[in-house]
């Protein structure tokens, strides 16, 4: 849209009735989205007192940013966030894509199967976190008991209180919760692969692997990009599972950016510092957002 074209004003006036339709939505979005973003950026330049009145805040420029980038706990949380995001996304995508491939053919009970596999995605993250805390319980947890019963370990593993296992244990829960999302997205993608093309290739003597690699995969590029981006974003933003299951512990071993920000903001009431931290996260997100919009609008050239 060439907005700089002369007559923009006239076009706006001509379309004035159109804006009535979007006005309520825009008003709400200004109030609950635009203003909060502005306020977060604004607060990030202030040293705020540790109380909720926020009256005696002092402008300190980029001071909060310098402090955060120098904190050891920030570096540790950054590494954890990286591990959490990358491995959650990777495993959720691989399991989801595998399930989509297996479900992408007619068989009895296929709809039921798809429904069952989607349930973890639908139930609340809070319920999921408690269920898995119980499964991981250090004394009475069923996973520990099974691994002892089949002779895998001598004693039940302490999944959540050990700095070595906690991250992997949380990632398993997260993958359990979100692989169905990847499955549904990829299944929808697979259904757009033209059947005639696959059959024609079969007639020409192409084997299953060949058909998959040269026909199916190229067709799935777009949906794969969107799915992976949405998984990355969701994982970077996830709060409930780590917060309920460990609260970032033990000793910060499962602290990721989001839980760290929450702890700074509402545990220690350092709104200025937490705002600067949010802005850093926000910048990373915008980078991904750019690719997301680009992926969604490709081929939408109207």
């Amino acid at each position, binding site marked *: 849209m060439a907005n700089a074209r002369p007559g923009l004003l006239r076009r706006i006036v001509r*379309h004035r009735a159109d804006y*009535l339709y979007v006005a309520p939505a825009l008003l709400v979005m200004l109030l609950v989205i635009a203003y*909060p973003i502005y306020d977060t950026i604004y*607060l990030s330049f202030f040293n705020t007192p540790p109380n909720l009145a926020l009256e005696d805040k002092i402008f300190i420029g980029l001071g909060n940013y310098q402090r955060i980038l120098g904190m050891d706990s920030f570096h540790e949380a950054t590494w954890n966030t990286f591990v959490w995001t990358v491995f959650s996304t990777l495993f959720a995508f691989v399991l989801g894509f595998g399930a989509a491939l297996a479900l992408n053919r007619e068989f009895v009970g296929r709809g039921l199967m798809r429904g069952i596999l989607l*349930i973890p995605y639908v139930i609340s993250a*809070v*319920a999921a976190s408690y269920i898995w805390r119980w499964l991981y319980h250090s004394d009475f947890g*069923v996973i520990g008991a099974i691994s002892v019963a089949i002779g895998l370990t001598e004693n039940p593993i302490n999944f959540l209180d050990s700095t070595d296992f906690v991250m992997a244990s949380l990632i398993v829960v997260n993958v359990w919760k979100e692989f169905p999302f990847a499955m549904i997205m990829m299944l929808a993608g697979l259904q757009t692969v033209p059947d005639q093309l696959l059959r024609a290739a079969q007639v020409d003597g192409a084997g299953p692997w060949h058909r998959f690699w040269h026909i199916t995969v190229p067709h799935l590029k777009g949906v794969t990009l969107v799915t992976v981006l949405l998984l990355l974003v969701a994982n970077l933003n996830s709060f409930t599972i780590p917060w309920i299951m460990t609260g970032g512990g033990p000793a910060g071993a499962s602290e990721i950016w989001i839980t760290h920000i929450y702890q700074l903001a509402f545990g220690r009431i350092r709104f200025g510092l937490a705002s600067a931290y949010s802005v850093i996260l926000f910048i990373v*997100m915008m980078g991904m957002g750019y690719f997301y*919009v680009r992926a969604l609008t490709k081929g939408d050239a109207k």
Partner: protein
Amino acid sequence: MKRRDPWRIGGAVFLAGLTIFALLPMAWMLITSLKTQFAALQYPPQWLPKNPTLEQYSLLLSPGNPVGQEFLRYLFNSLWVSFASTVLGVVVAVPAAYAFSRFRFPGRNLLFYSVLLRNMFPAVVFLMPLFIMMRWLGLVNTQASLILTYLTFGLPLSIWLLKGFYDNIPVQLEQAARIDGASRFQAFILIVMPLSSPGIIATAIYSFIMAWNEYVYALTFINNAERLTLPVGLQRFFTEYATNWPGLMAASFIMSVPVVALFLVLQKYFVRALTEGAVKS
């Protein structure tokens, strides 16, 4: 096509393994919820409850005792907050999504992509300023604060999903109505609205489930036990009765039932809502 090729067998084995992975935690939740507290804290565990009991469920769901009263209040609060924010979000989103789909007003693309980008922002970015705003408005500790803040994710999502549905309704139908003398608004109400009701249902359910499961805003804005919603209420329940795992599992089960039921009944719409936009055929 009925040949048994190794790909098909491999797929079946993989699918079976994945189903076990998906179902076992939920099976264990159900099994635990049917145990007594004593039976739950056994090592090695009772794989199946020796004396299954519905004690926890009757405790949680009977208004006659304090635990049940508390739990039912949380349940009711969750229903109310999710319902109100869904209705509010859909009512505001429907005309906006329609305008984004049909009209070509200046600034349309810019506005629409900023709606889209909202999906990228973590709730935590909004948490502090919204908390300050709610304090200023005097809404901290009220359910209005939740209904309003749930729009931060409900509204952009609804606009995005609904626009996808409107894009799929042929514009010729409205044009025919216009030729017959209907105004643009009449065409929207009389022709487009009925056709888009599946889309509105899908969007409303998606938005309801998101609100029902929401945790972080409820955790931050509400600390009055009277007004808690279920996800945060569950946590209080957990800390107050720390060892009552069967009770917690029963509560988790009850909390999951509405969303799973809604979803299973309307699976088709739900899946469509999820994948709308990402997949272009």
